[in-house]
């Protein structure tokens, strides 16, 4: 035990008790393949997080053998982590949610546990109007202080509208994918394959990028 420092554990227990009102499922896909850089570490982090509140439950599946679940959640790589509330919102983490991305994981759990994304009302309304499928890929590194802003905004959008799916992708663990998308700086946000931008944009500008992408598409 003990990835989390004792003081941090106490702090999170307290924060979670304030925010989490509904069950939160952490649905995790792991693998025993030795290609997996951080499968063990990722699982350890999630196990510690599960301990922080009664309403959080961790479900662990094997990417190679639990085909049904892999298909149900549309999992493409491992390790993968889905944060689910009353339904699957399309919030995913590919790779380890450590470093700065630990804060994305924590805040996602609080949003899902609270049952609503922490967005401005006007943004929520505008996001709800999107009626075409949007897939957001957010490439990050764990040591990037600005990356959680992009990940969180994308995940909140996914929570607000079921047409939107959004994946954090830890670039170090998926070098081929990062190369395929020419990622040399993070955060890199890819919208439906073709359009991308770099940097942490405020929620309204992020939304504009999505709307522009839909116009082009």
């Amino acid at each position, binding site marked *: 035990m003990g990835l989390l420092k004792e003081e941090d554990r106490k702090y999170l227990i307290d924060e979670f008790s304030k925010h989490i009102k509904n069950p939160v499922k952490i649905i995790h896909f792991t693998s025993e393949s030795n290609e997996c850089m951080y499968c063990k570490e990722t699982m350890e982090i999630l196990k510690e997080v599960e301990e922080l509140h009664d309403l959080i439950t961790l479900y662990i599946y094997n990417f190679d053998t639990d085909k049904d679940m892999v298909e149900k959640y549309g999992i493409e790589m491992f390790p993968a982590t889905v944060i689910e509330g009353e339904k699957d919102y399309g919030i995913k983490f590919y790779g380890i949610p450590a470093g700065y991305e630990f804060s994305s994981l924590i805040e996602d759990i609080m949003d899902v546990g609270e049952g609503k994304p922490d967005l401005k009302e006007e943004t929520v309304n505008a996001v709800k109007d999107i009626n075409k499928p949007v897939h957001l890929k957010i490439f990050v590194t764990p*040591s990037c202080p600005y990356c959680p802003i992009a990940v969180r905004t994308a995940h909140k959008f996914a929570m607000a509208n079921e047409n939107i799916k959004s994946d954090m992708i830890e670039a170090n663990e998926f070098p081929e994918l990062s190369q395929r998308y020419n990622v040399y*700086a993070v955060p890199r946000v890819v919208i439906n394959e073709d359009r991308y931008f770099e940097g942490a944009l405020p929620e309204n500008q992020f939304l504009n990028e999505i709307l522009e992408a839909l116009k082009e598409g």
Partner: protein
Amino acid sequence: MELIFGPSTQKSSKREYDAIIIGAGPAGLTAAIYLARAKLSTLILEKLVPGGLAATTDKIENYPGFPEGIGGEELTSRMEKQAVNFGVDIVLEEVLDVDFLSNPKVIKTSDSEYTGRGIIIATGTSPKSLNVPGEQKFRGKGISYCATCDAPFFQDKEVVVIGCGNSGIQEGIYLKKFAKKITFVEFLPHMTAEKVLQERVRALDNVEFLLNHQVTAFEGEEKLTGVRVKNRETGEEFLIPADGAFVYVGLKPNTDFLKGKIEMDNAGFIKTDEDLKTSIPGVFAAGDVRTTILRQVATAVGDGALAAKLLEEELGG
């Protein structure tokens, strides 16, 4: 790997404060700690993430009290927790406009409007760009301004670091853990980094120094493949093949939103007197954003404390 998280940011419904601080870097966070301990209601507005520029550096070795050095993020997240513990509100909104002439003073953000009886500007600086051909085009395609963010993409690659001041050398040393080779380019005939950093960088394998050289262009097709430089003595121009370039050529103040509202020097840094007062009564400036000769965490923290104390006196606290 560390597990990093800040105090969960707040949505403040409060609109009126005794003191409003713009910018949650070391200067703003320190000022907030002092003001909150003086029992003044205190708000910090931050456009990106608390911690400021200091949070983007891998290791800080010259801030007293940490003989082994301390991670920039770890240091600033401790400051942030300390401020929150004393009751400071930290809200993530960018300040877009101010009205310093009304009473109380009005601060307009991306989302809302706040009033404060006193204001401390602690918006720090952003990395300067070089303004040479190719820089915009290859931004994010090889050119980067944040080594801790992007270093892993240059594993076993050749990298150019532009600027041999403290930041350039320090980040270059960090990058060398990833890159195969680093060429440092400096406009001046000498490095300006601290002597201990100079010694350390010179001891590394596979590093080269081009002093008195000027970058003239970034080149490539889809992504960066080289940096063109000119020897300032001989005029000779040549291309350094490179997969990445990290730019550390100085800092520009984050004061665009204050143009015409407060006195600045030619470069846009805020002018203060020795008590950190600006040209407007009740408005102070602290840290890297003001005209000063040293921009470091230690000086930012000192400024923050002093500005807070003097503001407290002004508010009759």
